[in-house]
Each structure stands twice: as structure tokens, then as C-alpha cells.
């Protein structure tokens, strides 16, 4: 289940959008013991000024993305806008049965987007 993209394109400022991955949807619910799914989320939105100026956590920062946004506002054809990407990620753990009937707990880094930012 995904939050629909705004206006079918990448309208609205860069922010985290909801995306839920259900193991049942991919037919894994019989061998994945827990969880039933997880909130992976995704990033989408424009990184024009002032969105490029705001950082997760609200502290404005001068970085490459801001320079690009400034250049784009001065000369739109020059370098294009920065991208809206994950700025903060979390891990998940999955408990499942493998093909040898072992019960396995696996830890995966960077599976959940907590915050997005312009880069």
C-alpha cells in the first residue's frame, strides 16, 4: 500500500510518503513468522527553494543541494534541481522458517525511510 504520488508527478515539497510492504501480498506469509509486513516508506517531492533549505529536524543548512537549488532559480537550464532522497533510515528484523526447518532471525540495515532530504 502506497500513499498516492501527488498529482501523478513529483509535485509538492520533498517529504516522506507512506509505503507499507505486506508479506502476504508477495505470498510469503506462510514462511515469514513475523512481522506481517513493515512500513518501508519512500521519498518524493520537489527540491526547489525553500524546500531544499529545510533539513529533517528543522535546522537550515548550506550544502550542495542548496547551491544547486539556488543555481536553478537563477539559471533554470543549468544544473537541474537536487533530488529528494532518504536522509535517515532504520533497520528491520525478520523471523522466518528456512528450507531446513530452522527458525532464522535476520537483521537488515537501512530498510525503513524515517526522513527524506534534498541532496
Amino acid at each position: 500500500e502506497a500513499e498516492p504520488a501527488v498529482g501523478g508527478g513529483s509535485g509538492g515539497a520533498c517529504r516522506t510518503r507512506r509505503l507499507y510492504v505486506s508479506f502476504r501480498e508477495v505470498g510469503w506469509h506462510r514462511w515469514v513468522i513475523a512481522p506481517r509486513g513493515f512500513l518501508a516508506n519512500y521519498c518524493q517531492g520537489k527540491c526547489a527553494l525553500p524546500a531544499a533549505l529545510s533539513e529533517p529536524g528543522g535546522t537550515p543548512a548550506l550544502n550542495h543541494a542548496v547551491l544547486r537549488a539556488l543555481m536553478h532559480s537563477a539559471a533554470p537550464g543549468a544544473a537541474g534541481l537536487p533530488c529528494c532522497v532518504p536522509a535517515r533510515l532504520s533497520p528491520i528484523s525478520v523471523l522466518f522458517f528456512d528450507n531446513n526447518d530452522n527458525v532464522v532471525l535476520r537483521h537488515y540495515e537501512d530498510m525503513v525511510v524515517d526522513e527524506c532530504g534534498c541532496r
Partner: protein
Amino acid sequence: ARAPAAPGPAASLLRALGLSDAPRDAPTSRPVPPVMWRLFRRRDHQEARAGSRRTPPAAALRPCHVEELGVAGNIVRHVPDRGAAARRPEPASAAGQCPEWTVVFDLSTVEPAERPSQVRLELRFAAEEASAGMAGSWELSVARAGSGPVLLRQAVTALGTPVRAELLGAAWARNASAPRSLRLTLALRPRAPTVCARLTEASLLLVTLDPRLCHPLARPRR
């Protein structure tokens, strides 16, 4: 020649999760061991907290570390004993000889890149006769199945609680990758003339670290 069909999204996601193929359905007869539930719940709770804005992730959760067991690792497996089904009923103990048991652990799903950080044998015994007491003094010995020296000896003072024996460094070299199968011979000898015990359950708790799924913590500040 036709190029092989691109894997579907499910197959790609499976590969990204480090699994070669989708396991078949869950075995109906095998409950999830409590230790695995406990490890999962503890990890799930920490990850949920790590995701919140309040706790910086590095402080809340050390990647590739199993907090509860205190070892490095990002894959924990509970491996049942394959030998249980084939194990013949022990002969009655004659002339003070207690029986030996062979346990077999199938480790073929462990990948060569995985480094073991904990290999814990978990055993449950019962007194052979209901009237015998559960307290007493035994010595557990572990050897490779077939001929071979005893690799580990451990005192056992009660039969009612699980007996745990750490095999890493004893029956399993620290930096060795997993064998496809681990076959061990166990014996539980009474120190004082008491009744022999019976092995009722054997399993292996294996913690490994797959460095390919780990990345260092945040880059050092310049």
C-alpha cells in the same frame, strides 16, 4: 538466444534479503522456540525506537550486534537435531554404562561468508526412571561423531533445566566457516552411582555475522 527472463519483483526482493529462494510452507509441527521469539521482540522494539526522531539510531541500536546474547551478529538460527528421529531407544544401562547419543545439525543453509560468533548447544535431559531425582552430579562430554577425542567436558548438576554448552573454540574453530553438517556424540556420565539420564531434546543456537549486510556506523566527521 533468448535472454533469461528478468526476475519478478518478489524474486528480486528475496535476493536483496539474502535468500536464494522462497522457502516452502512452514512446517506445521514445529513451534517457534521461545528464545527466538524473545530475540525478535527485543530487536523489533529497539528498531521501532531507533526509527523515532527522539533517539539517534547509533545510540539506540548497534548494527550487527545481538544485544541479548552480547555477541556480534546479524543472523541467528535455531537448528533442530536431525538425529532425534533416527535415534534408537537407548539400551538399558548395564554394568554402570550410560548410553551415548549422536546429534546431527544440518547447516547447509549457512553461507561461506558468514562468520560464527556464538555456537550454543542446548540440551534437555530427563531422569531415566520417574522415581529418580532430578538433582545429582553428571559430566557431559561432547566429541565429534565417530572416533575422535572429547572436545568439551562440562559439569551438570540438575536435569530439570536446559543444559547449555558453548562449542565455539571447542568443537568449532573460531574463524572457520560452517560445515554443511555438524555431527556430535554426547554422553552424560553420572559422577556418583546414580541412575542414567535420557536425552529428550537437542538443538543448536547459531549466531553468525554476514559482513556483506553490515556497513560501518556513520562516517567519521571531517
